[in-house]
């Protein structure tokens, strides 16, 4: 297992090299620069030139590129042009909100996704199954930002139950966290709940047909023991794979959701960085997120191997 982990870690190095090149190439090609963004609607050409000089953007491109890689080797991702803080500290500051939000969304996904999938599988071909399957399908068909907007209108404005926006760190105030994070987490989770419910249902159906489950039932074990112990444990393999993917999807979704709910997280940070042409922030942020996701995938693969030791860990072949 350890050798496998190390080999996979080494694998990520060339990938990260390509990622950093893609990130840098992206920046070279995007029209518009941060000076223009900072200048705002009323800026004169002379003002924008001055901002550009202040930011060091009048340097030739290869000088900027060289500086980027030189600093990267020293573990320095540079300074954000628009936030005036080092990229690393911006990431560290924003990461908790996104992690908490993703964790909450993940929790909702696991609870509702698994429950829906299991119930549907157990009541296969009944109206319960139909309803659950339909709900799951609708879940994967709704645009999450649209859902977020509709929820704000219904739950904040009309019913007045939850605040419209903002974020409270759960370490400071759990109730505040639940009040601010429930809507965005639900909007984020909806797609994943549908996804997981569908996977769980088919994985469970597969497993429930297997001999050992029939044997367990025949032995007269209570139904929940059969389901939880025998069936679910075996259905975990495909589920873990999907859960590994879900984090990547959650990060993607958080860009729009954090914008709508005014949550200062990684998604909003990166989305805004691109829209504002904050070059170092884009580079550093993308590199960080890509590395984090690759580690998560590695983790998912190791879990995969744990749940099913018969499986050859290196799925890439």
């Amino acid at each position: 297992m350890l050798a496998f982990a190390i080999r996979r870690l080494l694998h990520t190095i060339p990938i990260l090299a390509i990622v950093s090149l893609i990130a840098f190439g992206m920046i070279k090609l995007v029209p518009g620069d941060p000076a223009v963004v900072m200048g705002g609607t009323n800026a004169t050409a002379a003002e924008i030139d001055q901002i550009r000089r202040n930011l060091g953007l009048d340097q030739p491109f290869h000088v900027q590129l060289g500086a980027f890689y030189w600093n990267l080797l020293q573990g320095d991702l540079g300074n954000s042009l628009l936030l005036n803080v080092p990229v690393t500290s911006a990431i560290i500051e924003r990461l908790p909100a996104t992690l908490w939000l993703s964790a909450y969304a993940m929790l909702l996904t696991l609870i509702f996704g698994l429950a829906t999938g299991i119930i549907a599988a157990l009541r296969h071909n009944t109206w319960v199954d139909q309803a659950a399957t339909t709900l799951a399908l609708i879940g994967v068909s709704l645009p999450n930002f649209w859902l977020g907007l509709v929820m704000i209108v219904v739950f904040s404005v009309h019913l007045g139950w939850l605040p419209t926006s903002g974020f409270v760190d759960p370490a400071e105030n759990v109730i505040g966290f639940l009040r601010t994070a429930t809507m965005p987490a639900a909007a984020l989770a909806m797609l994943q709940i549908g996804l997981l419910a569908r996977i769980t249902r088919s994985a469970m159906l597969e497993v429930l047909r297997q001999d050992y489950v029939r044997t367990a039932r025949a032995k007269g074990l209570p139904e929940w023991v059969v389901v939880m112990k025998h069936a679910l444990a075996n259905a975990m393999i495909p589920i873990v794979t999907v859960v590994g993917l879900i984090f990547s999807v959650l990060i993607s979704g958080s860009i729009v959701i954090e914008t709508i709910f005014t949550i200062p997280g990684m998604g909003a940070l990166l989305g805004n960085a691109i829209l504002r042409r904050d070059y170092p922030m884009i580079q550093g942020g993308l590199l960080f997120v890509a590395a984090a996701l690759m580690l998560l995938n590695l983790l998912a693969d190791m879990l995969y191997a744990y749940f099913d030791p018969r499986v050859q860990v290196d799925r890439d072949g």
Partner: protein
Amino acid sequence: MKLRQSILAATALTAVALAATPSNAQGFQCPRTGGDLIFALESQVPGLDQHASNSSATRNVAMNMFETLVTRDENMNPILELAETLETSADGLTYTFRLRQGIKFHNGKTMSSADVAASFDRYKRLGIDRSILDPVDSWSTPDANTFVMKLKARQPLFLEALSSFTVPIVIIPSENAGAAAGQLPTVGTGPFRLDEFRADSHVRLRRFDDYRPDTRHATMSGFAGGKRACVDTVTLRMMTEPAARTAALEVNEIHGVEDVPAASQKRLADNRAIKLARLETFWMNVTYPNWSAPPTDNPKVRQAILAAMNFDEIMEAATEGQYKLNPGFQYPGMQYFTDAGKELLNQKNPAKARQLLQEAGYKGEKVVLLTNRQFPVMYNTSLVMAEQLKAAGINAELEVLDWPAALQKSQRETQGWNFFYTGWITVIALGGPQTLRQMAEPNPVYKPKDNKVDPAYMAAFNEVNTAPELAQRQAAFARAQRIALDQVMAVPFGVAPKTQAVRANVENYVPYFNTRFSNVWIRP
């Protein structure tokens, strides 16, 4: 306004105090103190280095913490702030500022002329509008309370430029003057000091207990005057979604919003827990052509386009009905206001347009309207304009980019665009000369060939800047405006208000070009 004319016109006098008559030895007194005022801003704050940012969002926050020697008052006239007096020499070359005593920075240090000089040094080095200081030959500090500027040549409008607040020359402690652009520690002399700044989320300001109020004025005026922090803290939340912002105000999560979309105003006006605060003439909706790209390099084509347009329809769509048409580049009541050339605006005359197009030899060349979606006002303006041009037989086409890309493209005349959209706020508010500068050398927005501006316009512009008599300057302004409209350097569609709103228990919030939190208190 009278007062300032006497100062600017009669500079032969030796000692002139720019301050208004002291009316209240106490300055402003808070009827009530305490509380956290939560206010929603409509855009992200791109940092608080007031020398290195020209964004309105920066001023919204930073100008509650920083102060200047001289700024503009509520009516846009120069007003002294950290300066006690200003004396101008008879030849108009020497400006002597005497500083107010006992002013403390947020770091506890007492302000002296060395800090002022260091602030000007930094602004000269990296200030966004450092061209303001171009006419200045040198500055010096004869003693701890005196700051003297020497001009290279007589410049009647120097004080107007010095006091303009697009990028105000705020006074910082000398030890911070070496800070690189964007890295300035937020230490000023204002009634609030910085408590916490989380980019893209919120800024919290806290009352500065050692603030020395300006007791010469009973109330705040512009950014200056009698100011006090009545609330303990101000939390400014950046909420870019208009619907979420308004909803937060309605459910009492926040005390005020910087901007209320037109569509929501009626509902808020009917809500007795909310007060609307409106600045009637806030911004001018403007488009300008590209003189270097065909077919708008042809004056007849530009005139045809101007003739074809119906400004009412455009403003109606852009502002959802909240607008006034405006006959020129200044608003009625302003010093340089004139309706010269107003017959060229809002002509609604497609027949004349077709006639002009024929004379111009127009053969259906594309007219590219370069616009963006980040600012719905600009987008809707371009949308209606495109329809009107098409109706007059002009092959108009929208090019929609995101804002940074669009703005960058607009600065390159070779890149195949014909009209660009913007909103002029401070460009108009700061007065006639400032407005004309947009269309004058060295950086005329409409990109004429080789940046060479019509000599008659430049002559009028220079006269506006140098003529000693106001009447003369006003006449020159009218001439310049007529030329600008006749040749279509820029098109002023009309003026729209800025509507802000606060909860009913927030007292004394007065809307201005930027949000101001001094003298605002919260009723329990």
